[in-house]
């Protein structure tokens, strides 16, 4: 059930999110702007922004086959999301990048760095950082040192100086964008949200795919439109939340909403996870502030051994806030960290009487018919319809 937004601003977001290269990047590059790609949501955009670089979150959009990457990553045993993303790198879709920072969240993801470095794709700046697998002061300090190395690497490669002042400004700027995105999410708490789940995914994806200042301005404009929008009171069957890893396309939301459900919110690596909380805007050390945010305040990656209570709390909070009827936990085959997390969540949701559908799928596969059948049955169950 699409809201049917008629807005040139939204159309721009939809266009930007539907492909990798987009007109906004072309314009940015023509003005001499540099673009830095990254994987994983814990890689801090704040540092890129402070350096005057445009962050671009690497995704697999448009990939029809992971064939090129399958040489590097064994197809049967490695998550298809990672393979499709890397396939897009190998096929030249990311040739516009001036560099990339690989965030080593999971085992497959961190190996993108080694494989990229040895591949024929010669990207001028390649760096990696690792997300700590537990949250504590010691881990935040260790992560801060990694950010410091990244900062030094960027300064040396791009020939500039990343002062604390620039970093604090970037932190405030990125917090402001997060606040706008939170407002967008909050609009979906309404009984009849002015924007659908699929459309929200498109807006959020655009946020890590175009110049940030332009995105901020466009998002403000979209919110102005949505706040005053007259929303038809269309009936729907159930309010759903999507939980899981890289959700860089609208396919699951599209299925849910085409079948009469509403994706009211999500906790995914490209969505609800990235807009959570905010980085402290003052203090002795901006890098420590960023590290504390990622490691202590926002540990939503199940690769972190302390993540589950945070994920659980956030989901149960949203069940209430967004008046959810059910949860769809979707993950990719071979993503054992999320599979395990969804297994634990399923047990807890069951105890609480909250229905959950778990889906293990391949990225960009032809199995949408199967998904549709399972999701349809789930929605019918939630709405009390006949199966």
């Amino acid at each position, binding site marked *: 059930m699409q809201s049917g937004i008629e807005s040139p601003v939204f159309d721009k977001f939809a266009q930007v999110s539907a492909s990798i290269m987009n007109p906004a990047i072309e314009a940015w590059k023509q003005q001499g702007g540099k673009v830095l790609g990254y994987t994983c949501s814990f890689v801090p955009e704040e540092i890129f922004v402070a350096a005057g670089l445009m962050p671009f979150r690497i995704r697999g959009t448009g990939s029809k086959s992971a064939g090129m990457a399958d040489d590097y990553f*064994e197809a049967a*045993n490695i998550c298809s999301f990672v393979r499709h993303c890397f396939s897009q790198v190998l096929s030249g879709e990311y040739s516009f990048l001036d560099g990339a920072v690989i965030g080593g969240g999971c085992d497959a993801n961190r*190996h993108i760095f080694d494989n990229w470095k040895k591949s024929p794709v010669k990207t001028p700046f390649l760096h990696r950082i690792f997300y700590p697998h537990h949250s504590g002061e*010691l881990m935040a300090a*260790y992560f801060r040192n990694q950010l410091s190395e990244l900062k030094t690497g960027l300064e040396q490669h791009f020939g500039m100086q990343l002062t604390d002042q620039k970093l604090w400004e970037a932190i405030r700027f990125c917090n402001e964008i997060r606040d706008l995105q939170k407002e967008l999410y909050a609009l979906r708490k309404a009984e009849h949200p002015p924007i659908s789940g699929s459309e929200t995914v498109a807006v959020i994806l655009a946020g890590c795919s175009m110049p940030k200042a332009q995105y901020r301005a466009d998002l403000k404009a979209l919110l102005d439109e949505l706040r005053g929008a007259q929303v038809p009171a269309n009936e729907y069957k159930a309010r759903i939340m999507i939980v899981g890893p890289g959700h860089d396309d609208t396919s699951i939301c599209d299925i849910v909403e085409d079948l009469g459900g509403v994706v009211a919110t999500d906790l995914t690596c490209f969505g609800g996870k990235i807009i959570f909380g905010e980085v402290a805007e003052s203090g002795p050390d901006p890098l420590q502030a960023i590290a504390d945010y990622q490691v202590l305040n926002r540990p939503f990656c199940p690769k972190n051994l302390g993540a589950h209570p945070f994920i659980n709390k956030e989901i149960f909070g949203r069940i209430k806030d967004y008046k959810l009827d059910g949860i769809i936990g979707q993950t990719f085959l071979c993503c*054992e960290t999320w599979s395990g*997390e969804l*297994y634990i969540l399923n047990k*807890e949701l069951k105890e609480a009487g909250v229905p959950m559908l778990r889906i293990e799928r391949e990225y960009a596969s032809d199995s949408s018919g199967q998904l549709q059948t399972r999701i349809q049955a789930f929605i019918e169950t939630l709405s009390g319809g006949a199966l």
Partner: protein
Amino acid sequence: MINVFSQLKQEANMGLFQLTLDPQNASKGPLVMGNGDFFIEIPAAFGCSFSDLTLTGANGTALPNAAELIDKGTELGVGSRLCNAIKVACYYLEAGLLRTPDMIMTSNSCCDSMDTLGNLMNAYKPWAHVPKFKMDAPHSFDDESYGYFGKQLRQAVSFMEEVAGRKMDWARLREVCVESNKQRQLLLEFQELKKAVPCPAEPDLARQGTEYATWTLDRVSPKVTHWLEQLVGATEQRVKEGKGIDGVNEKVRFLWQDLAGSWASGTVLARLQKELGAVCVMDYVSYATWTPIDLSSEPAMFTSFGKRFLLEDAMNRQALHTTDLFCEDILRIVKDFRCDAVIMPAHIGHRDTNSRLKLVRDMCRQKGIPCLVLGMDIWDKRYMTPEVAFDRISTFFQTTGLL
């Protein structure tokens, strides 16, 4: 006369049997349970049993009812492609078959599947009251990382003291470390002896020795030291006599760059050795790179614990770090142990290995080292049967002219 190697093998097997479910549950005294390896000198000195649930699961796959256990783990729905050793461990946990530990120590070492098990252990409701400690093993190996992990191990000691209500006996910890250093030195000596051509002793003894000395309840005890001394003594004698493995006409030496798992050594590797004279002179658990624990001060000791855990623990070394390190080790082993070929079992549950196969293949091709990638399940022989694995490897040796 009883062959000393057979006797040693039998002793080690009895030690390793302790790692299966029933003996683990029957262990006495305080129990620390982990989702993977821990720095075993610490619980040993503290007078605790340590149970690595991954190993308990892995050993479950060696039992006669392995297939049933794996299927029960699969039916849980923790992840259809989860490593089968972990699936069995998850089943033991979720079915309530494990003794309740007194403490739980989890870390991300060394793979995503083990993380998943750690998450399940930490969220397991019947154990909600059990005190828990979590650690972050970084994917880097430098002084900063060793110090970082060493500090976490020091915090782990404080945690254990708080939970148990008693203090660590530091003199005892030093004694344990001295014993541990002695054992690691013996493993290194055995490794040196294995470089001889023909290979003087069953290669599997190195893996068993490492596992016996690292993971069993007898760990870092004089009993294991004595076992290792006997192993080195008997192997030295063989080298002096220029003898190879009894009944083996050594023709090919190869590296098995993965865990041996629960079934390959007794089936595929044993057949290759006996029928074709193809000897697996090294595998990645056996490859020892130990350095002594520095006992000069407490911080130095913990930093060297960090190094031992991150860089020298066999599986952490191969799974946590860069492909460069992985490839360097392959080249060094091939050179030092005069290997004719590299077999990459590429266990289906090892995301790290499955993410670096092209780079390994390319390197081997460039260096002229024959390399075969299998893509098998080292815990479940239904995925690729021993007969198929044997056939593929023997065909590979024939087509590359090694046989």
